[in-house]
């Protein structure tokens, strides 16, 4: 009926009108720059002058002539390989602790969540003080048990591991998601296990962890993406990636190439290489999910 389709078209129009700010924003500020950067990665470009086509030269140089590309990629991969699993283990462990029904648990939950909303620059400056080898809290605590703490941010490889440690500071964000996942596990499963005589460890091993795998999977994917774009803390602590390039992350090198050396074309090629790496790794993780992620129903 023509009348009905007109009403339906009007409804669609109203719907699109409501979401139009997002659509316009997405097209203008995400999709267009995204496509533009593909073109720019094949050019020499400094923002003010017109881009000059250089073919695949940027990619070839990246892969065959740029030692820093491989070095910074390795630092980033190593960071992802250590910090993402650590963040999952600590996030799940904290969520389990904060799932215990004791008095004042909401206060504890708030306290553990709070660090994740502290601005990154502020928390980075805070850590510079905490990790000060002479007057910092970390080395003061280590000294109480007779350990002469390292010069954390001033020496390799400690500077790198300091950043891994700092990344755990914001684990409260994922912890809240784990906690929601824990709350979602049906109680009858635990009741049945109790009747069957399962102890707490077995309940965790055979009920909690399997039921949490969708949430763990989500945080794993987000963690990989986030750690490959790790930038702010490294930039605040050492904008040139020192000591000994140990904190020279891929995104930091990309930033320097773009804004310091004004090689926007080269930086665009670097951004696309990063995109490809993330896509490959995310796809690989997605492929494994059938083997270890358990969805209800």
């Amino acid at each position, binding site marked *: 009926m023509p009348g009905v389709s007109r009403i339906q078209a009007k409804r669609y129009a109203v719907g699109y009108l409501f979401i139009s700010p997002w659509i316009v924003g997405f097209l203008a500020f995400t999709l267009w720059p995204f496509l533009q950067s593909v073109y720019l990665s094949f050019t020499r470009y400094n923002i003010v002058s017109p881009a000059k086509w250089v073919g695949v030269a940027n990619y070839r*140089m990246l892969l065959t002539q740029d030692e820093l590309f491989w070095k910074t990629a390795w630092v980033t991969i190593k960071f992802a390989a250590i910090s993402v699993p650590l963040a999952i283990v600590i996030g799940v462990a904290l969520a389990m602790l904060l799932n215990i029904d004791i008095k004042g648990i909401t206060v504890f939950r708030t306290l553990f969540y709070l660090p994740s909303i502290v601005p990154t620059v502020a928390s980075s400056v805070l850590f510079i003080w905490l990790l000060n080898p002479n007057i910092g809290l970390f080395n003061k605590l280590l000294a109480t048990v007779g350990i002469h703490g390292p010069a954390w941010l001033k020496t*390799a490889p400690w500077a790198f591991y300091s950043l891994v440690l700092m990344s755990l500071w914001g684990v409260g964000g994922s912890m809240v998601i784990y906690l929601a996942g824990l709350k979602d596990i049906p109680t009858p499963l635990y009741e049945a296990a109790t009747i069957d005589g399962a102890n707490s460890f077995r309940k965790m091993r055979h009920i909690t962890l399997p039921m949490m795998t969708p949430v763990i999977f989500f945080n794993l994917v987000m963690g990989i993406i986030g750690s490959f774009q790790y930038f702010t803390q490294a930039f605040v602590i050492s904008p040139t990636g020192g000591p000994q390039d140990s904190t020279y992350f891929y995104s930091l090198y990309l930033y320097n190439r773009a804004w310091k050396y004004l090689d926007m074309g080269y930086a665009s090629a670097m951004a696309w290489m990063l995109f490809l790496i993330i896509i490959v790794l995310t796809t690989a993780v997605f492929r494994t999910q059938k083997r270890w992620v358990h969805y209800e129903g």
Partner: protein
Amino acid sequence: MTIDTSRWKRLLLWTAALVLTVVVFANGYSTPRQYPQRKVVRFWHRWQGDWEKQVKKIVDAFNQSQAEYEVVPVSIPGDGADAKFILGVIGGDPPDLMSMGSGAVPNLAANGFLASLDDLMTPDEKTRFLKDSYPSIRDVGMYKGKCYGVTIGADLMALYVNCKQLREAGFDPDHFPQTLEELEDMGMKLNQWDANHNLTRLGFLMSDLGYVSHSFGGGFNVKDDGTLELNTPQNLRALTTIVDYRKKVGLDNVLRFQAGLNNIEGAASWSFMRGDLTVTYDGQWRVEELRKFKPDLEYRVYPLPAPKDGGTPRGGQVGGNYMIVPVSAKQKSGAWEFLKFWTGLDNPDRAATFYNMGGWLPYSPSVANSPTFQKWLKGDPQFQAFLDILASPNCKAPPPIANYQFLADLIGRAEDQATQGAISPKQALEELESKFKEERAKRRELGYDE
């Protein structure tokens, strides 16, 4: 009839908020204008705290000195100032004038971000500028024969010496070592340690390879014909000296000690003021800070003594804040008028006051020899050491190449790797040169003119 006052209050509040938002955002300038009828010159700088107040005083003096322009200063803090400037230029809303770190000037000029200041100068001003300036200060702002940056606050380094600590150790601060070797021996005797063998006071330490290499007859240079002077025997000697001395003190001891220093630039908490450093290498702005924050500290300033054989006295490299005008600035002539006023190109004696406010190095001997500057120098005689270095032929400008920032990062990386003991000084410089060559080959292939 009753009137709902809370509803009216709410309406009034929303209206006030709306008006405020419109005023703040539609105006385009968050800083209030003092002279709205004048042409506005937007000036971005990177000074904060006490420095920002000095800048404000200079701006006020300019605004009161004439009736055509109003300079509106905005402090752009942090390492991201370069990126903000670039975004301002490409976004079509750049400042009219910006104070930028000198290292960025050639790259920005090569990439077409900057207006040539030659075009803003009258022929007479240009002749005077080229003739009057200290050559090393002038050359920092030059790229391919044109001037793109003029300093209002160039920086140099020299040794600050704590007289009391020297006397306590049996040295006479007025008979300072004449060679680097003598200074190193003295420095070792001035170190102090606690019971756990932690360094509590550092006698002397040399760093900043790019700078000190000039005292060894070296320097990291790329000549106009493309010849590289990077991995040279002089630069190798400079880096080896830095590393060997650190080894004597202990690499880890130095790292720990330096990391523990509460060394916030521009603050009254400089470690030298607190007595943690006896002889330390620092910039000329510290003279004014010492006068303000620690007037009772007796100290001397000396140029870094050159090594005994083959060294070059009063060596150094100029850096610091350089004023640039973006190519798309709307008020270039106003920017140039303010720049002239601050530098003293038109009136050296008036500008001397501005240089003295921040303890900055003057752009020319005509400012340094002006009555006002000389009078100030009598009160801060230690500043003379910096003027001596500035007047020396061994005080140089960094190479005016577009990828200077890349080279500066390589120099920093080489020093970092060698002082941490990861590789030898020889390997560090070989690596530096080979990486620079690779980068140059890449740039050539991509069609850059250098």
